[in-house]
Every structure is written in C-alpha cells, then in structure tokens.
C-alpha cells in the first residue's frame, strides 16, 4: 500500500522553536539528556508521534482494485478447476428405498420393525474416481444445530464415563430405567443408523471405516476405557445401538455423529473406498434404510466423492465468487479510472472554498 508520509514540518519546526525555551527550562530541572525512549514518550504526550497518512488517491485506489482483480480471477479459476476435478455422485435414496405400498404412509414404514428395510441402489460411475473415495451420508432438513439438541450431550461423560455424574445437560436422555446412560444426551441417542455395503463385479467392495473420526476425538475426547452403558434401553429407540463391548474411543461412527453440524443440511463421512473406480462401472449399494427422516420430511443421500488438496470436496462456490469478485474489482477499477479521467478537476483549487455555516435559528 502506498503510504504518503506527512512530515509535519511546519508543526515540528514551530514546536521546536516555541518549545525550545520550555525544553531548556525543563531540561535543567528534569531531564539533562533525553534518551530515545523518553523522546518517544514525550512525542506521545504531545500527540506528535511520527505518523503516516493513508490517502485515498485515485492512483492508489484504482491500482488496489486492479491488483485485487488480477489476484482474484486466477485464484478463482484455480479453485473452480480444483472443485470441478472432484468427482461427486449424489444419490437420494429415502424415497427410492420406499416400498410402493408405504408411499402414502412413510412414517408407518420406518416405524414398523417387521418390514425389511433393505434396499439396493445401482450407482453408475460417470468418471474415473481415484482412491480414496469418500462415502458420505447427507441429511437435509436435519437440525443438529437446534439448541435443545446441540446442548444435550456431556463431553466429560464421554471422556470419564460413569465417574462423571453431573450430566444434567443431557436431559431428556440422561437416565433410563433409573440408570444413567452412557453416552447420554439426544445427540448420541439419535445417532444415524443406516448401513451401506458396496458390491462391485459381484464381489463385496471393501470399505475402510477406520480413521473417519478426528484423531483428537479418539485420543482425547472419547474415553478409551469407557463402554456404552444402558444405551438405547428406553422405551423410545432413537438411532443406532452401540456395541457395549467396544470402548467409546473406538466407536468412530459415534464420534463422527457427535461432531454437530452447523447447518441443517450436512454430510458426514461413513467410510472410504480404497480402490479406484473406473468410468461407466456400476456399483451396487445395499442400504439398510433404518433412520427415520420421514416424520420431518428430511432427505437422505448417499454421496461418493473424491477429494483434492485445495478444497477437499466439490465446492464451486469459492471459485465462482472469486471470479465474480475479481471481475467486479477490475470493473470498479476501470470505472474509477474513467471517472478520474473524465473528472479532472483543477486539482487543489481552494478558491471555491466557501464555508456555509449553520444558519442561526430564528
């Protein structure tokens, strides 16, 4: 940025002259020699510290906007390219997996234990997908950020288990049958329980379900020796049940689920396919469609996506907005430049300086 140095020559000259006598006077009494530090303090007390002024000259502003445009447009294209290079397949299955006879009463279907919830989805791979391919489930219209919901958990309990008994934040899923629940709270209780298994060329495709949670969660947030206790034993079954023999620190689905989402539409990782998928290949997914999103009209989607270094998943937004912003900046720069050329007012003409004063109130 161009800074215009304003050496307040006149002021300092004046000051030094006018104050010199004072200096003289004071120097005798207080400070025989002024060190650099006290000089700064002195200047501070006199509100006379060396200052740069930032002046909005046409040159500065126009070049600033131009520079911004020049920087933004390429970044935008790079980001857009990165985003477009990601292959992403989104399949909504909550309606697909609904048997025709239940189409009119979806809630009855999902709550009926006797009905089989399995369904198979055929996914055609449009483009070559390089491993690792992330498998996400996406929920829409699901408010993990709802105040009642997001607060209903207890991180201390997740770490220390039953030793930690102040779990009132977990209401209304704190106790069941008179015993505390581990892990308590609505978040854990409502854990997503759809299952996916993949079949390729007639053989099951291995899905790596390890390392899908944050390492910090495994190491420090979820206890190694804490086992689920009294979980999903109530009258109302929310979501997934947990294997009580596996400690929380290894329950990666739980960890993923318990990282609450800020938006009502979100994806959470299910696992990774560690093989490349070729174009035009067809992959069959066996879905256990257990999770109830039908009462509130939420959508469930299965997402397969590769990733890239720059942005992670597919996201055109940043690229597009960078390009738009960049071009707007260039446009503004051109606009201001034209304006500047057109309005070459006689610079620094103070003859028109008239002071219109507030009229006296009569």
């Amino acid at each position, binding site marked *: 940025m161009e*800074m215009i140095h*304003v*050496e*307040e*020559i*006149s*002021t300092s*000259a*004046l000051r030094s002259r006018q*104050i010199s006598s004072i200096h003289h*006077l004071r120097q005798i009494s207080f400070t025989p020699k002024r060190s650099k530090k006290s000089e700064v303090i002195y200047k501070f*007390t*006199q509100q006379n510290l060396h*200052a*740069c002024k*930032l*002046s*909005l000259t*046409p040159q500065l502003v126009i070049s600033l*906007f131009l520079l*911004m445009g020049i920087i933004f447009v390429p*970044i935008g294209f790079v980001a857009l390219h990165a985003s477009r290079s990601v292959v992403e397949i989104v399949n909504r299955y909550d309606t697909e997996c609904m048997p025709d006879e239940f189409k009119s009463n979806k809630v009855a279907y999902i709550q009926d234990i006797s009905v089989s919830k399995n369904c198979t989805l055929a996914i055609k791979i449009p483009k070559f997908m390089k491993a690792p391919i992330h498998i996400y489930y996406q929920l829409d219209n*699901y*408010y993990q*950020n*709802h*105040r*009642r919901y*997001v607060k209903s958990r207890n991180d201390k309990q997740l770490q220390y288990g039953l030793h930690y008994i102040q779990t009132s934040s977990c209401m209304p899923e704190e106790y069941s049958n008179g015993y505390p629940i581990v892990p308590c709270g*609505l978040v854990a209780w409502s854990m997503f329980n759809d299952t996916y298994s993949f079949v390729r060329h007639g053989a099951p495709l291995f899905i790596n379900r390890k390392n899908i949670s*944050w390492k910090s969660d495994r190491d*420090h*947030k979820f206890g190694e020796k804490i086992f689920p206790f009294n979980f999903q034993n109530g009258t109302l079954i929310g979501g997934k049940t947990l294997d009580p023999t596996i400690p929380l620190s290894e329950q990666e689905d739980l960890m993923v689920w318990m990282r609450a*989402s*800020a*938006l009502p539409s*979100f994806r959470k990782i299910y696992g990774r396919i560690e093989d490349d998928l070729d174009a035009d290949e067809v992959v069959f997914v066996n879905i256990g469609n257990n999770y*109830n999103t039908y009462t*509130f*009209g939420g959508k469930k989607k299965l997402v397969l996506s590769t990733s890239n*270094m720059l*942005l*992670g*998943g597919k*996201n055109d*937004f*940043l690229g597009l*907005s960078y390009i738009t*912003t960049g071009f*707007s*900046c260039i446009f*503004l720069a051109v606009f*201001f430049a034209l*304006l500047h050329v057109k309005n070459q007012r006689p610079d*620094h003409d*103070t003859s028109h300086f008239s*002071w219109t004063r*507030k009229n006296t*109130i*009569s």
Partner: protein
Amino acid sequence: MSRGIPEPKLTAVDAMIDKLTGAIFLFQIVVVVVLGIAGNVWKDTEARKLWYVMYPIEKPWYELLIIPLRFELLCSIMIPISIKVSLDLVKGLYAKFIDWDELMYDLETKTPSHATNTAISEDLGQVEYILTDKTGTLTENKMVFKRCCISGTYYGNESGDALKDISLLDAISGNTPDVIRFLMIMAICNTVVPVKCSTGNICYKAQSQDEEALVNAANLLHMSLTNKNGSVLDVNFNGRMIQYEILDILEFTSDRKRMSVVVKDLQNGVILLLTKGADEVILPYASHGQQVRIFFDAVEQYAQLGLRTLCFGCRELEDDEYRNWASLFKEANSTLIDREWKLAEVCQKLERDLKIIGVTAIEDRLQEGVTETIETLRKAGINFWMLTGDKQSTAIQIALSCNFISPEPKGQLLMITGKTVDEVLQSIERILLTIRITTSEPKEVAFVVDGWALEIALRYHKSEFTSLAILSRTAICCRTTPSQKAQLVALLKSCDYRTLAIGDGGNDVRMIQHADIGVGISGREGLQAARAADYSIGKFRFLKRLILVHGRYSYNRTAFLSQYSFYKSLLICFIQILFSLISGMSGSSLFNSFSLMAYNVFYTSIPVLTSVLDKDLSENTVMQNPQILFYCQAGRILNPSTFAGWFFRSLFHAVVVFMITVHAYSDEKCELEELSMVVLSGCIWLQAFVVVIETNSFTLVQHLAIWGNLVGFYIINYILSAIPSVGMYTIMFRLCRQPSYWITLFLIVALGMGPVLAIKYFRYTYRPSKINTLQQEERFHGGRILTIEECESQENPLEKDLSPVTIVHNKNRNPVYEPLLSDSPTATRRSLGTSINFDSFQPIQPRFFSSHLRNLKSN
C-alpha cells in the same frame, strides 16, 4: 452567593450515545419479539416433528417465554457494555493530553493546563458560545494606576502616567487639600494589609487588584500605608506619621459596587467617611451644590481609553450622626436573616451627600494573543459574549481593542437601555427590528446591555431577550453580577447551545459551574475559578488550542470509537440472528461462550482504542482553517444518520461473513466448532480492516495494535486449541492447515471491504466534505499548508508582537460608533451628562429588592 451546587455534566456526545443506545435497545426488543414469535411458531409447526429434539408434549405455561428469552440472551451483546470502559479510558487520555500539552504551558506563571473534569473533552469541540469574563481573562489583570482627575484637574494625560506628572507631584508637595484627601482615600479606603517583605520594603496583600494598584500608587506618591495594627493604621506622608483608626468597613459587594470606610483621624478626632466605587453609584450621591459634571466627563474620557475608573468621595461625619448610624450598623450586622440586604440598606444611609474628590483610572492591559484567539475562534463559528462587571464604556473599549467587536462601518453596536420595564422592552424590540433588517448585510451586529437593563430583561422580557440572544452573535453585558452571569449561561443553554464560560475570579465561579464547559484561568485573582472549572489554563490564548485541537480531536475520536463499538457488537449479533434462522429459530449460539466474551474484551477493543492517536487533519491545518470545527459543532460526525451508516455496514458485513462461510464450509465441512471459528476469524479480519480504513494517520502504535491484535487473536486461539478439555481443541490447527480457510477469509475481507472502500473513495474524491478537501490539500502540499513564515505569523503570537496590544491612546478619536440608533453609548452618556436627573437614577434600592427576591426564590 458566588457558589452554587454544580450539576454533573453530560456531553452532547454522551447524550447522543445514550440516545443511540436507546434506539438500539428498542431495535433489540423488536428483534427479540419478532424472533421469539417466529421461534414459537416454528417450534409448534416444525420442531415437534423433529423426533430427535424430543420436545415434551406437556408444556408449562412459561414455555412460550423460553425462546424469546433465549433470543434476548443472544441479542444482549447488541449494546456494547465495553463502550463505557473504552470511553472512560480514552477520555482520561484526552484529559492527560491537555495536561501534558506544552503548547498550553504558561511559561510566565509556570502553570500547565489542567483538565479537572476528564469526561467532557468532546464538548470542547462542540462549543457554540463562549461567555468570557473581561478582567483577568481577556486582560492581564495587572492593574496599574495611570491617570487621575482630582477636583477637575487631570493628571497624567500628557505623559500617560500620573505618577510621573510633575503637576501632581507639585500639588502633593504643595499640600493641596483635595489632593491629600485623594491620596488618603487611595491609601486607606481599602482592606489591604501591609506586610514586611523579605527585602525590607513594605508589600501589600490585597484581595482586589485595584486596591493593590491604588495603594502602591499612593506609596509612590509619598502617602504610604506602613502598618496596620488592629484597627489603627499608620500612614507615612512625606515622612510625617499620621494615624487613623478604622471604625467601620462598609464592605464591597458586587451589588453595591462600592466600598467605604469610616475612619477617625487620631490627630484631630474628626470622623470621616471615605468611599470609593463605580461612578454610577458614587456620583449620584454627591452633595447638593457640587458640580459633578467634570467627573462625569473624566470618567467618560478614561473609559474611552479602556481604563477602569473608580470615583472617590468623602464626607465628614458628626459624632451624633455616626453614633446613631453605628448602632444601626451593629444591629444589621448581627441579624441572621437577609443580613446582606439589611447591611446594604444601612450603608446606604451613610453613603450620601458625598464630596466627590476625584476619579482614578487604572490600566489593565490585554493579554497577549487575545485578539488573534478571538478572531480564530470567531472564524470557527463560535459566538462570543463578554460578561463583565466593569462599566460599559470600558467594556466596549476593551472589546474594540481585542477585535471582539468591529468598529463602524463593519460592525454595529446596539444598546439595550432603559430604566423601566417598558423602556427596556421598547429598546429590545427596536434592536430586534434593526437586526432583522440588517441580517442581509454582512454586518457584525453586537448588542450591549448593562446590569440593570439585563435584570429587567431577564425578569420580564425573557422571550424577547432570548430571541435577541439567538440573533446576535456578539454581546457585551456590563455591570453584571455573578448570578446574572449564571443566568445568561442558563439562557443560552436553554436554547440548546453548547456554552463555554471562561473566567478567572470568584465572581465567575457560578457562570463556570453552570456552563456546559467551565474554563478557569489560573490567574492573579486566585485559583477559585480554576478550581471550580472543568479546565484551567494559564492564558486566554490557550483557549484556541484547547478547543480547536483538543476539543476537535476528542470529538472526532470519540465519535469514531463509539460508533465502531456499536458496529462490532451489532456485527456479532447480526451473525447470531442469521445463524438462528438456519438453526430452527431455537436460539442456539454459533459461538462458544469464551469467544463471545473475548470478542468484546480482547479481540476488538484494543485496535479501536488507538484512535486516541488519530488525527484527521494536522494541528496546523485546523488552526488555519478553524471553520472546520463546524463539523463538530453541528455534530456531523456522530448523529443518527452516520450511525445508520455504521448500522448497515455491520449488517452488510454480517451477511458477507455469514453467507460466505456457510457456502464455503458447507456439506462435509460444516462442523459447528470449525464453522464458528471461521465466522469469528472473518469478523476479526474485517474489524481490523475497518479500523484501518477509518484511521487517518497511522503511528507505530496503531500498526502495533491493529496487526498485533490480529496476531494475538491467533495466538489466543492456538493456545485454546492446544487444551484437550476445551471444546475448541485442535480446531485452530485444523483450520490453519486448510487452504480453504485462508481462501475464505481473503474473500470475506475483499467482499466486505471492497464496497466500503469504493464508496469511501467515491465520496472522498467526488463528493468531498470540507475535511476531505483539506486532507487532499495536506497531501498535495506534503503537510505544509502554508510556508513557515506564514505559519509563524499565524501561529506564534510570542514572536509576532512582543509588546502586547495596549489600548490605543487617541484623545482626538471621534466617537467610534456611528450607530443607526440614537441610543449609542456616547449618546446616552451625553444625555446623562447634560441633564443629570437623579430621581430616575436610583437603581440601588430596587436592585437590592430584586436580588433579594431572587435569593428568596433560589432558596
């Protein structure tokens, strides 16, 4: 009498901030109500379907209140509590800057300027009226006896100094009785105490500068007061020792305007009443038969020269008369109720049939830089009123000599005269008419009013007088009492003007306390005024710097600081509101409680505090273009419309930050803690750039604070991210490793600041305010607006004119004014002089009565 109970002062800026806070509070209530209702509706229609939220079916009656209260909690940060702390801090610093300022350090008396009241510096920049005392404020209050007129003979007219006038010295050595009596009054009609100095000479300790000047002059004229032993005075006249016994002292009050002593000449036992006082209270009591015309002429002549006059009178008292009176006096002295009034009444009985001895003229020189200060401040649009206890012609003369009013034909002086209620009314109406006619002409109209007419005007014609006060930019009020001064301040305040009262003496204390800003000059009349004042300065000329530099900067800085505080609080609040729209209107907070707390306390408070060092224009530019103060006076920098700009800026920034983050961190990346930290970082970055774009001059401190704060934000969050038990554990490490985090922030800054910069640039270049124009000037001239020489002549009164302005001694000057109206000072004087009508000139009694009434009322 001179002291009142000072009210706590509130600056216009503070009042405006309070008003804006009220508006924001209303807005907050509206938001809470609207969101609360929407939240309840959403809960009943949608949230009950969300089985995972598990809303209970049975709900207590207060359930409806929960969501609005949640929103109230979320929105409570809308009103920044930190603003009070920040404002107190910066106000303290403004005051310190005044204390430290070496350009306002009085070398002569070695007094620095001092801000006693640290809370009202902004008001200095919004002053519209300055009410100034004359003696000691505009003048040096260094009284020097210059001339006298004894029984019709003028002394000192030729040489300009009576002490060197040979004819006077001759008269003294010739023992001319009137001259001796005159000297005697000079020496003993006072309350001066002679003390032995360290040098062995006699020094005088006097309460009044005039008395000191007179006693000193008498001393030089061989009539020296050598000792005061109880009530016995030793006077050494030409080596002869004369002793007087003081029987009674009839004290000076500002209502009586005179003082007397009753002395007994111990040589011959004669009891004498010696009186000195203002001409209008002495000359009317001259004994019948004495020709007082010459004294009127003398007073007039001296006043024309700007000299302070005192008339001397005396009377020999019969023993009986004195004894009768003394008992009355004793009685009055011991009353408890209305003592002052009763005493005055008794004194009045004695002070009559005086033999007028003479008139003294005392010079009080103008302080240096007064003329230039008044001129500059007047250019800055500040109106000046001079309130003085002096007589009219002296006041006018001083006013002329210090550019307070301009001589004809540029200026016009209008008099409010009249002894009765109707006369005063007529006079006021006539002046109103004249002013309204002449408003089209570029004339400086000033009105002059004396204490008596002022009293009537204030009591009976307040509305007329008020409209006159509004119309007239300059006024001279003579012979005013301390309470009248305070009343005038109150009058201007009632018209919503910001008033600054400046004075040096005890009689200005009430005015100083009543005005929005009281400035005391720590002068010779003691520190009474300086102690009561909000600011004390050593010299009148520092007022210019106090107002134009300190006042103006303070106003600008506070305006920025307060609006910025609202901006940042609104920003975070708008984001919370936006978040609640996508979190099911449940009132969830996007930010964790620590971030919310730290946002106001650490992240956003420090950079803006450095605005105390910001200067939009250099001091020189302001001094040379004092008109720029108009922006402060009119409140152009902090008002509802500028505030609306900040309001919408915060709304815009909230939308930018939130929308970008939500879109950039969608799908698999929308983890709550991460997203909230991205939003928070976006806010902090925008804050930093907003401060940058609103700062005019960057010192190192500002750079340190702005960028250091940004670094500090990351340090704090890195530390928090390293603590496993905290919810934010590892969040910041994760974010900083993601390129998309930085890309997002960059976009937020660009989209948030781009439009702001574009608009600001457009305004600055194509719709510039006067401030912008001056800034461009400064830049063009590289900070030097004028050459050094020009600056010196403007800036440095010390070098410009080492000999202070003295009053022009021009005997042959024609009456300065050629007023349109017949009631000019000279005209009145003339008519008074020719036909002395004492019956209509008896202001004393009713004056006392009225002030008595006033006292009763104020009690």
